[in-house]
């Protein structure tokens, strides 16, 4: 009880624990645990003081908290289209400390999804919502799943709204942009 000085009595003795759990206490000594001490030099295999620099094939966006583009970096998906413009702006203008940085990047992610759906369609490799969402996994042993616990049930009702929202908003913005352009031409 915390209301008096004594510690609660342990439920099991070390002997009981050792008998019940394989390896109990094998790492009992904190000073003998891996990663102790937290900061220490261990040979890493690096044979350089500063790594040779990877060739930058396009201007690599970087956090303004960095002095320069790091010597090695990923080249997975270069920024492109409108989402690319937003991403580059988010990196150029705001540090990681600013919410605007992350909110712009998330907005760019949603724009990217819409843009990519359109380009995939134009390239003849359209998105297939049935195969890509993996819902075919629902169909295999359906009967077995009746009454089964699942993690997504709590927010099923919200999901369509969230998935459709970027499309509705994007469509609305595109429509009003086109309308504004047309009106300006006429005016």
């Amino acid at each position, binding site marked *: 009880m915390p209301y008096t000085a004594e510690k609660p009595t342990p439920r099991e003795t070390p002997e009981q624990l050792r008998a019940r759990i394989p*390896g109990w206490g094998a790492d009992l000594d904190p000073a003998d645990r891996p990663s102790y001490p937290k900061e220490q030099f261990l040979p890493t295999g690096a044979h350089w003081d500063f790594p040779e620099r990877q060739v930058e094939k396009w201007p690599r966006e970087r956090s303004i908290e960095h002095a320069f583009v790091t010597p090695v970096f990923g080249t997975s998906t270069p920024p492109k289209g409108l989402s690319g413009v937003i991403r580059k702006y988010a990196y150029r203008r705001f540090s990681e400390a600013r919410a605007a940085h992350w909110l712009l990047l998330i907005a760019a992610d949603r724009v990217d999804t819409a843009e*990519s759906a359109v380009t995939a369609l134009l390239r003849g490799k359209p998105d297939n919502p049935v195969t890509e969402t993996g819902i075919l996994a629902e169909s295999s042993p359906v009967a077995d799943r009746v009454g089964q616990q699942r993690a997504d049930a709590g927010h099923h009702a919200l999901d369509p709204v969230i998935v459709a929202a970027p499309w509705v908003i994007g469509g609305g913005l595109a429509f009003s942009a086109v309308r504004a352009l047309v009106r300006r031409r006429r005016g």
Partner: protein
Amino acid sequence: MRAMVYRGPYRVRVEEKDVPPIEHPNDAIVRVTAAAICGSDLHLYHGLMPDTRVGMTFGHEFIGVVEEVGSSVQNLKRGDRVMVPFNIFCGSCYFCTRGLYANCHNVNPNATAVGGIYGYSHTAGGYDGGQAEFVRVPFADVGPTIIPDWMSDEDAVMLTDALPTGYFGAQLGEIAEGDTVVVFGAGPIGLYAAKSSWLMGAGRVIVIDHLEYRLEKARTFAHAETYNFTEYDDIVVHLKKITDHLGADVAIDAVGAEADGNLLQHVTATKLKLQGGSPIALNWAIDSVRKAGTISVMGAYGPMFSAVKFGDAMNKGLTLRMNQCHVKRQWPRLFEHIQAGYLNPSDIVTHRIPLEHIAEGYHLFSAKLDECIKPIIIPTAS
């Protein structure tokens, strides 16, 4: 080559992509023989992590065979069977030379707060991951290790993130002999953290989750005492009651950004992306641990702010410890524990899925269908 590709929230597909080239003299190209989907991949899959670009290949847990090495690579050669830690790290910067491999400063131009991680958005450096036939592995002399002959492929995949992270979670808890440890989350990390807590001398290990099949695994695999938080009006009060109203000595958050349990938190974080993650598990940890106790955070959170109960943490004098795991520092000891039979990492693998069916794999894992705990992706099985 065939590779998993992200198409937008809740959508992935398999596409034909170019085999990645050597881009740096210390690169290797690895032919993937097995990869895993991680709980933290679901944050990407759900569109929660900023700068997750359409076309990226995910996957930071993989093993394979060296296909090609760059001109400066000395420690690996074509044909070596290797395991690759999820951290990409240079081995020579301020942080790497102090053993903080997860915090390497030379591999992620996109952010200074995050290290380099395979297939984990541009926020973690923009590297393609291993849910593909081939993957580029930077700093081949530093990260990968040859898999010992006695080790199985599935144990090796679990050693690239999940097992070391769970073990590291227990370690950051600074468990003293006889301590009561409460682990939030009975996913792979939570199961390994619970199991590792015993190795460090815990006197009592409690696991909290809401999925009964996972709690069952926590009882059998990790010998833990378990409680389903949906069965209690207030899990914090329950935890106090079963610990003499003192609270646990150590709490481990093995849930992270997408915790269920509070609809407001879930909607603002997972759905509206207004938080860096919904910190329900972390807040439960703060409130249920004893005063002057320790909290170890292994759950992944986004770079945005989260509504964490810092006032309680301060008033209680808690120690909060956290980091991404420096995977390679854990390996020698974990190899010993596996050989001694203390840890059987592949016991939690529930699904083996060909790469061609990865969309179903993500859905299954995301919705926790068919008692899924850990799915493995086999690139060559299709």
